[in-house]
């Protein structure tokens, strides 16, 4: 399902120090450059629609938490006039590494923490890991069910282009239908090693499972799908899929980058006061419907059930299940003691959400730790 009927889109300027090119009132085409980073290594923000620029305002985005960013407001004329002519590449694995890096760099393709992923490939990755059963990621199944061949082709291209030594595709073996489908299709891709996991796992758990130590890179299926579009169709990142979960029903919708969540929910006839943006395990609950779809937003969860937080029962599951054997409860205990937090290795905490997922008392450790990390970083 594609939704692109919105009269206004709000294109987020992801870095505060980016230079905005067009002026208010200017006409921009679909895929016009709206802003770029300073310096030689330029990364660009493209327009996802054609129309006139109305204003630049601040809007909330989901980038590892809800953050306010400047957005360029474009009045959509629905003409979808594109500036650049595009062709298709038959063999994406034959693309030169420099071209590949350039393409993903200019598209400002980032990981969930808004870090540009091209840097990982510049630094010669040895091991590429694709965790299709990432805990709390509802979008992965959609990509595998609908775009499996494109995904496998792109992974193979990533291996060829970047001379990657090892590549692991982790699949939950309980999802037998999907596993069979992958096993049927993976045969010709000899460089991709299929790893069957007993359950959904966080990326940090996958590191433990695979016993990899350094020079590895996790690529999300969302990014692989976008890379396919960039390499195969020479497209820019103007649209993306998001999963909208409402009363256990999942809608996968393709929306323009810069679409407003309130308009998406209205169009889908979804009424709610609160919703969760981001991952199912470590997302953020909010009532702010002004949030704009950015590259890092994967899902919107309308969760009407209120989960009551109980007192810590000292079961130690947060420590035992932590991939790095950290002590989340001690982080909370010493939240105002920066030295102690450092000694307890808070920097190793990747906010993977495993502790929150396993806590029998439903303590929202992940968001508490996120706040502690942010406060101590300042």
């Amino acid at each position, binding site marked *: 399902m594609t939704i692109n009927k919105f009269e206004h889109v709000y294109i987020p300027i992801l870095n505060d120090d980016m230079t905005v090119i067009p002026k208010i009132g200017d006409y921009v085409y679909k895929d016009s450059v709206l802003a770029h980073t300073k310096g030689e290594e330029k990364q660009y923000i493209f327009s996802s629609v054609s129309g006139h620029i109305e204003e630049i305002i601040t809007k909330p985005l989901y980038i590892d938490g809800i953050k306010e960013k400047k957005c360029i407001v474009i009045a959509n004329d629905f003409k979808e006039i594109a500036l650049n002519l595009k062709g298709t590449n038959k063999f994406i694995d034959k693309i030169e590494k420099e071209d590949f890096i350039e393409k993903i760099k200019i598209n400002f393709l980032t990981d969930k923490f808004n870090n540009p992923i091209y840097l990982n490939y510049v630094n010669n990755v040895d091991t590429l890991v694709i965790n299709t059963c990432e805990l709390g990621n509802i979008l992965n199944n959609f990509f595998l069910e609908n775009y499996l061949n494109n995904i496998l082709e792109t992974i193979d291209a990533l291996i060829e282009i970047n001379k990657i030594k090892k590549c692991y595709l982790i699949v939950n073996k309980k999802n037998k239908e999907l596993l069979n489908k992958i096993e049927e299709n993976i045969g010709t891709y000899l460089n991709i090693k299929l790893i069957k996991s007993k359950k959904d796992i966080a990326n940090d758990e996958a590191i433990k499972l695979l016993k990899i130590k350094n020079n590895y890179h996790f690529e999300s299926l969302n990014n692989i799908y976008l890379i396919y579009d960039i390499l195969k169709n020479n497209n820019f990142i103007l649209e993306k899929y998001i999963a909208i979960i409402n009363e256990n029903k999942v809608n996968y919708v393709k929306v323009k980058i810069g679409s407003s969540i309130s308009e998406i929910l209205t169009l889908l006839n979804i009424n709610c006061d609160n919703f*969760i943006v981001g991952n*199912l395990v470590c997302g953020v609950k909010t009532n702010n419907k002004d949030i704009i779809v950015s590259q890092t937003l994967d899902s919107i969860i309308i969760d009407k059930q209120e989960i009551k937080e109980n007192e810590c029962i*000292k079961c130690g599951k947060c420590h035992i299940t932590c991939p790095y*054997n950290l002590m989340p409860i001690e982080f909370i205990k010493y939240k105002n003691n920066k030295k102690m937090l450092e000694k307890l290795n808070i920097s190793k905490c990747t906010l993977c959400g495993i502790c929150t*997922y396993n806590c029998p008392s439903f303590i929202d450790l*992940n968001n508490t730790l996120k706040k502690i990390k942010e406060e101590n970083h300042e």
Partner: protein
Amino acid sequence: MNNFSIHSNNDIKKTNINLIVSLIPIIIYSLIVFKLDALIIIASGLIPSILADFIIMRKDFKILTNFNLVSSLILVLMIPLSMPFYVVIVLSLVNIILRNILKKYKINIPVTLIIILNTYLIISNKLPVDYNLKNIFNLLIDAKTNIMAFNAPILLIISFIYLTIKNNLKYLIVLSSIIIFALINPTLNIDYLINGSFIFISIYLLSDTMFSSMYRISQIISGILNAIITSILLSFKFQNGILVSTLIISLLAPLIDILYVRLKTLKK
């Protein structure tokens, strides 16, 4: 208000269900062997405790969202079989009331109550004839004949495996405690291992979710300390040795955790 939308199914309710399921073979076995006697003691322990919990919690009452029911069940299993049913009722009620009053203080109430009961029985020479303090796990062991003693560890090992698979047990405490206990003085301690009382207390009381150490290393330290303290107390023929040691370790658990965290951070 929580932010997450999915959660592992290992919540407090599931933890309680797993603990009860792990006790089912033991309860069934005791019902087969002791028939009505066992049924009376279990019913006299559980029914008043559920009612008391309901009266105290009122609107918030949900049978498995706290550990009161499991705690009552474990308490019942340690009460001498020949105790009058009203003693069982009183102990169960006291257990629930104290657990609710002393919520903030990490005191293992069932252990404390059984120590008090045993001490009273010893001092007043009212120890039931079929009650052997070595066999604290009374519903399973007929102390008079001792015929079923060897079945206790087998059933407990099944419970241990079940709880470990279900991620419901701080198994490091149990293992370290039993191994060290067996190594310290095999001739002295073998009785307690064979009749299952030490294993039962290690699984259900020493590694109690709320009253034991949280971290891997501190769990091992707790287990080792428990084995040492128990062995010392038993070598002095202190009859309540296993329970007193368990109570000491329960009280020391937060301190062991703090010391472990301090030691861990001291290195850096």
